[in-house]
């Protein structure tokens, strides 16, 4: 028979923090390390068992490859190129998507006009554009940037529209009762109020763009992390392949984390819901 005390202990339901033990940073770091160590140990055991360094290299081989690639800066070169493309794409996407999203969110008329085009293009993922884009741009820098900009565009524009629409009506009313003109209200009330949601949208754009970078570089670029992964695969140098894949993951995580911290710094009043992953 399950008693109420058992319920609290067994079910980690949020809001139950009085009974549940709170996770300390040290505690969660410890748990993280423990799990990863178990994972690496299991990996090592399997790699020893299959003993095929091309199929499954030992974790130590991967770490060694990682260190070597970092040492001769090849890792950083490709990482830098991919990151550079992402920053550029994000800038382009934001430049297009933010004003567009703002207007669409503010004006029902404009939204009704433009939304059909957005909704028609949105289901066609950035990746589906690669063959056509390959034809237009050829293999090079432009292709990944185009694909990544396209990928980042939609989350940003949609999130901005949602953010603008969800601005508390009363804030706008309060400004109107102070006699403030509409254009000032947009600049001084709507934009700041929508900022937390817009930052979430940008984070989603970054994630989308970073996913696209791999696909784009794998197929259509002479440099970057995606290219490096594929290059080493063709050479059957699996430790290097894994090292680059891990780098892709780490950089993706760090980008998201830093954006979250930036959002926390610039919009400290935003509730946890809007900064959730």
């Amino acid at each position, binding site marked *: 028979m*399950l008693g109420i005390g058992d319920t609290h202990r067994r079910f*980690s339901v949020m809001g139950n923090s009085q009974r549940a033990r709170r996770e300390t940073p040290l505690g969660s770091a410890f748990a*993280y390390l423990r799990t990863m160590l178990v994972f690496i140990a299991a990996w090592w055991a399997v790699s020893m068992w299959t003993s095929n360094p091309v199929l499954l290299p030992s974790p130590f081989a991967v770490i060694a490859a990682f260190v070597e690639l970092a040492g001769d800066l090849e890792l950083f070169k490709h990482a830098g190129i991919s990151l550079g493309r992402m920053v550029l794409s994000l800038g382009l996407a934001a430049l297009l998507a933010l004003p567009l999203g703002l207007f669409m969110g503010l004006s029902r008329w404009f939204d*009704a006009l433009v939304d059909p085009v957005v909704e028609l293009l949105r289901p066609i993922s950035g990746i*589906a554009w690669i063959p056509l884009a390959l034809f237009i741009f050829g293999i090079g820098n432009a292709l990944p940037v185009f694909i990544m900009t396209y990928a980042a565009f939609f989350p940003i524009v949609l999130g901005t529209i949602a953010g603008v629409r969800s601005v508390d009506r009363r804030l706008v009313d309060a400004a109107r009762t102070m006699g403030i003109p509409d254009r000032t209200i947009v600049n001084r009330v709507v934009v700041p109020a929508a900022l937390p949601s817009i930052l979430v949208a940008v984070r989603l754009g970054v994630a989308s763009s970073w996913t696209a970078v791999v696909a784009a570089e794998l197929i259509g670029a002479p440099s970057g992390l995606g290219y490096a992964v594929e290059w080493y695969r063709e050479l059957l140098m699996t430790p290097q392949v894994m090292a680059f894949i891990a780098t*892709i993951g780490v950089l993706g995580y760090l980008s998201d984390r830093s954006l979250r911290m930036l959002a926390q710094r610039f919009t400290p009043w935003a509730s946890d819901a809007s900064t959730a992953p």
Partner: protein
Amino acid sequence: MTFSSIRVARSVALPLTLIVVWQLLGTAMGNPRTPVPTRIAAAALQLTASGDLPLAIVQSLGRVFAGFMIAAAIAVPLGLAMGSSRAIERNVDPLVESFRPIAAIAILPLAILWLGTGTPAAMLIVAYAAFFPIVVNTIAGAKRVSPTLLRAAATMGLDHIQTIRTVIVPSALPAIGVGLRIAMGVAWTAIVAAELAVGAKAGGGGSGGIGQMMFVFYAYSIELNRIVVCMIAVGLVALVLDHVLRAGLRSLMPWVSQ
């Protein structure tokens, strides 16, 4: 003109204008290969009539469903377990969170290394891609179960398994649904990407699917109109998948206001 027909007119105004402008500019360029709406429509008819397009779509869909089912079969129970037991979550979450930032397509070279350039590798990518949205949203759904409901179940004497089955699962169903919908979209994008990449690396050899077909049109026959047909097909299928899934989920959860 009635009110709703004005609405319809306004919706199609911009797309229609753009298509017309595109048609005019494209044909004016003189190159018969340039993709314009009329040629695209013709190519669409050809590809559908010959059965190539439907076959490719079915091949891709088959892989998507297979991979999606595998992912869901693992991710939903895992997510429920992690969402309802802090111990399980604490032990498994580091793994999930470490791999989540690594996009499915980045794993593709590994998948090809392990499984070759055929359907198994594609399914692995799809399953990997679909796994994370499902597990993340299922955890969130399980965690958000109202403590009051759990207490009510406890006072009625339900044991652990019963509580999961009768309280946590129904409560978490909307969130699980969200995860499934996101996963389906991700899975479809992933299969196109995987087939495209495999097509590019395997030199157009037969893995089939719409992604590979697109690549063939690019690299071998340089049929831009056909590429665009494939792109539109990709978009349409994505829309249909989402609608079907949404309708299916709605019928599963009549108590949720949409």
